[in-house]
C-alpha cells in the first residue's frame, strides 16, 4: 500500500511539473525566439523559423543586428525617453492615486460613494475611444514655459505623462488594500494627534508595500507599452518613446527582422530590470490581493 501511495504522489508531482513546464515554455519560447533571432542574419532567421532551430543558438551568430539597429535608429534616445516618461508617470501615479484612495477610504465626505462609483465606471472606457478629443484638448492646452505663455502641449514630455497620472485601476487597487488595513491604526493616529498627512506618510504608506509594487508594475507595463498616444502627439524624434521607435524598422519594404529582434531585445531590458527589482513584493501581493 505504501508503495502505491508513494507512486501516486510521484505521479502527481510529475504531472504537476509537466504542466508547469509546459506553461513556462509557452511563456518563455517567444522570448527565446526573440533573443536567439537577434543574433542571426535575417535570411537565416526566416529559414530557421520553420523548425526548432528558431529557438536554438545555431548557425551564423553575430552582434551585427545590434550594430545595424543602433545605426538605423537613435535607440538610446528612445529608451531614455520611455524610461523617463514611464518613471515619472509611475511615481506621480503612485502618489496621486494613493492620496485619492486615502481620501476615499479614511476620510468622511459627502458624495464619496457616488464619485467612487463614477470613477470605477470609467474603467470600462478604453483609452482609444477618448484619444481624439484628448488630442484636440492637448493641442489647445496652455502652458507657462521657459519662453513664457504658450498654447498647445503637442510634442512634449508632459503630454505623454499628465493624461496617465491618475487612473481608476490604480486608485481601485489602493482602495482595496487600504480597506483591509486595521481601522484602529488610523483611529489610534487620530487620537495621538496625527494629521491626515502624517497618517498617510508615516503609517498608511509604509504598510502598503505590496499594493505599491502591484500598482507600480501594472502602470510601468502600461506606460512602457504606449504606442498609439505618443504616435499621435509626438512628431519630434528627440522625445519619441521605444514603441513608436519600432516604426524605424517595420516601415520598410524589406523588414530587417534581425534588427527588429535586436531592438526588441534591447527595449525589453528595462522591463525585466524593473520587474526583477519588484518581483518578490509583486508575487506576495498577487497572492494576497488576488490581483493579476
Amino acid at each position: 500500500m505504501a508503495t502505491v501511495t508513494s507512486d501516486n504522489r510521484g505521479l502527481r508531482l510529475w504531472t504537476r511539473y509537466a504542466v508547469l513546464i509546459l506553461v513556462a515554455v509557452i511563456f518563455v519560447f517567444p522570448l527565446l525566439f526573440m533573443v536567439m533571432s537577434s543574433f542571426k542574419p535575417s535570411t537565416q532567421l526566416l529559414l530557421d523559423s520553420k523548425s526548432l532551430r528558431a529557438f536554438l543558438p545555431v548557425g551564423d551568430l553575430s552582434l551585427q543586428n545590434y550594430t545595424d539597429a543602433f545605426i538605423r535608429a537613435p535607440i538610446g534616445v528612445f529608451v531614455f525617453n520611455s524610461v523617463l516618461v514611464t518613471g515619472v508617470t509611475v511615481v506621480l501615479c503612485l502618489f496621486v492615486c494613493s492620496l485619492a484612495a486615502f481620501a476615499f477610504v479614511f476620510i468622511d465626505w459627502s458624495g464619496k460613494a457616488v464619485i467612487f462609483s463614477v470613477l470605477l465606471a470609467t474603467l470600462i472606457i478604453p483609452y482609444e475611444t477618448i484619444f481624439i478629443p484628448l488630442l484636440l484638448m492637448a493641442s489647445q492646452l496652455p502652458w507657462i514655459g521657459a519662453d513664457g505663455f504658450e498654447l498647445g502641449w503637442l510634442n512634449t514630455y508632459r503630454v505623454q505623462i499628465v493624461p496617465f497620472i491618475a487612473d481608476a485601476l490604480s486608485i481601485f487597487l489602493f482602495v482595496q488594500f487600504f480597506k483591509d488595513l486595521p481601522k484602529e491604526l488610523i483611529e489610534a493616529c487620530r487620537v495621538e494627534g496625527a494629521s491626515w498627512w502624517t497618517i498617510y506618510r508615516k503609517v498608511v504608506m509604509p504598510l502598503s508595500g505590496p499594493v505599491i509594487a502591484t500598482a507600480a508594475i501594472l502602470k510601468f507595463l502600461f506606460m512602457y507599452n504606449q504606442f498609439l498616444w505618443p504616435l499621435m502627439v509626438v512628431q519630434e524624434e528627440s522625445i519619441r518613446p521605444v514603441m513608436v521607435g519600432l516604426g524605424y524598422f517595420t516601415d520598410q519594404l524589406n523588414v530587417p527582422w534581425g534588427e527588429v529582434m535586436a531592438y526588441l531585445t534591447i527595449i525589453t531590458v528595462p522591463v525585466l530590470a524593473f520587474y526583477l527589482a519588484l518581483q518578490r513584493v509583486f508575487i506576495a501581493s498577487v497572492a494576497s490581493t488576488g490581483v493579476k
Partner: protein
Amino acid sequence: MATVRLRDVRKSYGSVEVIKGVDIDIEDGEFVVFVGPSGCGKSTLLRMIAGLEDISDGTLEIDGQVVNDLEPKQRGIAMVFQTYAIFPHMTVRENVAFGLTIAGASKEEKERKVAEAARVLQMEHLLDRRPSQLSGGQRQRVAIGRAIVRDPKVFLFDEPLSNLDAALRMNMRMEIGKLHQDLKASMIYVTHDQVEAMTLADKIVVLKGGKVMQVGTPMELYHNPANLFVAGFLGAPSMNFLQVDVKEAAGDRVVVGNGALDPLQISAEGSSFRAGDRAILGVRPQYLDPSEDAAGMLHGQVELTERLGSETVVDIGLRDGSSIIAAISEDRVLKAGSNIGLTFDATKAHLFPHEEIREEAH
C-alpha cells in the same frame, strides 16, 4: 487628570438611536467602568468621548470644557484599543514615542518619557523589538505605554484585555489597577466582563440598549441592584430569579411565596406591590444555605454538583419545576437526587416587579 461630564448624550445612525440620553459624571482621578452586554452601546459611548464618533445630541465636557466639536487630538485623551493598534512597521520605542514625535517633542524628552513608561510597564528589554516579535500581553503593554507618555487628562480603554488568554488577562487586569493607583489619572474602561468591572472600578456604569441602567460603586451595585438586569449581570454565578406571588403587601413589607417557597416576609422599600401581583425574587447563589434535612424555606432536589475548587456549585430543581443554583463551600458534599431544603437571609434577597422580565426580553 480631569473630570468628564456627559449630559443627555445621544447618538443616532440615521433614524436608529443607539445611545439614548446618557448622563454620567466622572470625577478627577476616578476609574469608571462601562459594562454591559455586546451591543449595549458602551464602546460607542467611549468612542464618542474619544472623538472618533460624532455626538448627535447632548454635551460632553472634559475638564469643564465642552468638547463636542473638538478633534480627538484636542481633547487631551489617550486611548488603548482592543486590537492594540500598534504600528507593525515601527519598533516598540517608536510606537511608544509616536504621539510625542507628532507633537514635536525634543529627543531628550522622548527618551526620558519612553524610559519612564517602559519602567512602569516593565518592558525596558522590549524597546528595540518589532510588534511581530511580541506576545499579546506585551503588545498591550506597548499600547498602554503609548497612552502613558502623553500625560493625557483621561485614559480610555476599549476592552483592552479581551484578546488575551485567561491567565494573562488576570495579570494585566491587576497591572492596569496598579497603573491607576500610580498615575491617579481619570480612566474610563469599557468591558463586557463583569469581573473586570467589579475588580477595577471605583464606579461602574451598567449600560443596556444605549441607556444607563445603574451607576454606583461595585459593592452598591452588587448589594443593591436597581433592577433585574443589573442584578443578573453582576456577580458570578449570576443571581437566581424565582417567580413568586405576592400574598400580602403592607407598606414596605411584602409577603411572597410560590409552590417551592414557603411564605416569606421581605422588605421592598418604595415599591408598589399589591396582594395578588406576580413578582421576581432574586437571591445570590452564595446566600443560599442548603441542608439535607429538608428544613428551610425553599424545597427541591439536587440535580448536579460541580466542584470548582474554591467553591461548589449545586444545581437544584425546585418543587415548582424551576431550577436554581447554590454556591456552597468546597468541603460540603451534597448527593445528586437527595431532597434538600434551602434557607437564606431575607434581607439579602431582592424583589423586582414582574414586568421587568418583559423588559429584559427586549
